């Protein structure tokens, strides 16, 4: 019961902050509320004992990626007059939400209709770095290696694209 109420609280925070994130006018506000979202998601990870992922989420997302975004915002020195004129933003938000609604409804309905939970007994080790690491190198070595190549590609791309003109 306790975990349920914590879940609802976190869920609420996540949803609200993400709504703020998509509706804030200035990117810096969005970024800050996105941090809130990410952190509460991380908390949700922790709620189901995924401790390692909790850490990863905080470090990589809230730490690295968000800092990158903030850095970019600062780096590009975006002033208010650089921001797009979004007069019809709220209509757009409302309209798109209406379009998305059936999609969410159908998926939620399907989830509710399916009996998917196994409710397996969670072992002590679950979610620890050892558990995740073993699984990763035992079963997921190939995707892991592939990701490295993906990162290589992204690296090359970032280099090519942001290189000053020769």
């Amino acid at each position, binding site marked *: 019961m306790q975990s349920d109420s914590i879940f609802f609280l976190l869920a609420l925070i996540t949803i609200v902050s993400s709504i703020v994130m998509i509706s804030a006018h200035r990117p810096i506000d969005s970024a800050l509320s996105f941090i809130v979202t990410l952190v509460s998601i991380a908390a949700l990870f922790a709620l189901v004992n995924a401790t390692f992922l909790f850490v990863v989420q905080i470090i990589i997302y809230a730490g690295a990626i968000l800092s990158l975004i903030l850095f970019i915002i600062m780096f590009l020195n975006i002033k208010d007059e650089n921001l797009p004129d979004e007069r019809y933003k709220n209509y757009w938000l409302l309209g798109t939400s209406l379009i998305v609604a059936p999609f969410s409804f159908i998926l939620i309905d399907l989830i509710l209709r399916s009996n998917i939970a196994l409710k397996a007994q969670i072992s002590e080790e679950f979610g620890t770095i050892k558990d995740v690491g073993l699984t990763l190198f035992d079963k997921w070595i190939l*995707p892991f290696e592939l990701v490295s190549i993906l990162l290589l590609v992204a690296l*090359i791309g970032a280099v*090519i694209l942001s290189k000053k003109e020769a």
Partner: protein
Amino acid sequence: MTNEFIALAVPGLLVLSAVFLLLFGLSSHYTKNRGYYITLGTLVVSFLISASGVSEKHSMDLLPGIFNSMLVYDTFGATFISLFLLGGFFTLAIAKSFIDSTDYFTHESFVLLLLSLFGMVVLSMANELITAFISLEIASMSVYILVGLNRDSLKASEAFFKYLLLGSFAASFYLLGMMFIYAQAKSTNLDIIAHYVLSTDIHSQLLIIAGSMLIMITIMFKIASVPFGAWVLDVYEGASLPITAYMAGVFKIAVFAFALRMFLLDYIQFEAYYDILIIGGALVTMVGGSLLAIIQNSVKKMLAASSVVHSGYLLIAFASTSEDTSGAASAIIFYLFAYFISAIGAFGVLSYISQGSAKTINYDDLNGLARTNPIIAASLTVFMLSLAGFPSTIGFIGKFYIFTSAIEAGYTLFAIFGAITAFISIYYYFKVIMHLYFKENPHMKVHYGYKISFAFIVLSAFTVLWGGVGTSLLFNLPGINALNELARFAIESLAM
């Protein structure tokens, strides 16, 4: 040579070569020509290796101990790998003139090309959703970057931006779908999912149906089916010509490789739910594509829009696949080959005559080409005829297979619909021919500086014709029959 060796040699060679080039590019010995020929050589060698696996039916889990059954090496994969390696080879070979006359094709671009091919190779062997996704991302990301290669061009940057943004959006659907499937089947391995699907009733498959639908959306995005393919015109226009050819001809093959494997292995059970959707998608794709193609002034955009129409035909065949016959699926393979050879040829001619300039080639720019460069004009004509599905070209045989399989699956009406869009497509393809031959204003003569481009344009044109009429009766060359045989082997190996 064991099968494992062949299976691993191709991606390995591609990665090694890519890494070598990446480093070699920094050395002072590097010249563009050397980089080009190293890439070309890699492609030839890897094509030869992979082609050795297409002639017989085989299927094996690749190193199950290490890879945890995530890769499968079978004729199906080998066929597709050979197809797009060949495609990549042709693209590159024809683009020689273009590459030489532009300065943004640096060594990184060859690396990216090789890596994208690597991604595709893994994608077509992938038997697991995450592996497939990552390799798809490798391939697409390389292509995103290749699209934006020309940083000086606003168009290229914009195309890169659109492609990247929408591509990421589409990719998130894939992940959501994968998550749904995982939630239900508790695995991402295609074999296990297939087993799960067969052993449960529909009530415990709802999320799999929804999830694979989401995955299908990504696939539809990649093959630019309406309404997920709105990016295609802009991106194709923004990208440089060889890259456009590469996207239109080669990338599509890899996507279909995975789509077919996934669909034929797992989701053929849900045919009843998907077919109408796919067919509906095919219809709007064909109509939308032809509507867009008919109004274009730029030949490149026309070809881009028409590639949408061709995706529509492929979707018809896709919907016509069924468990008991291999016809529709092998029709897809054949059609992919037919399309890539024609499209690469067509784009190749454009890149040949544009010689690296960023200028958009309008219909009027083709005027009088037949007078100054008759062979090139004739080749372009052949490609146009093939794309239009004119008999005696390989494009016709492809359409023939697709329509046959559609009729066999009971979609006669849709075959008729396909025929109608094919008939509309006559307009814009023949418009090219018209401008080539009938308009007076002579085109500036293109000097025959790049023998290799020229030779491969002609070779593609010949292949197009040979694929349309060729029989093994003449000269003992493998003809349509042989191609057909290969396609059938490929499909049948899936079931092994």
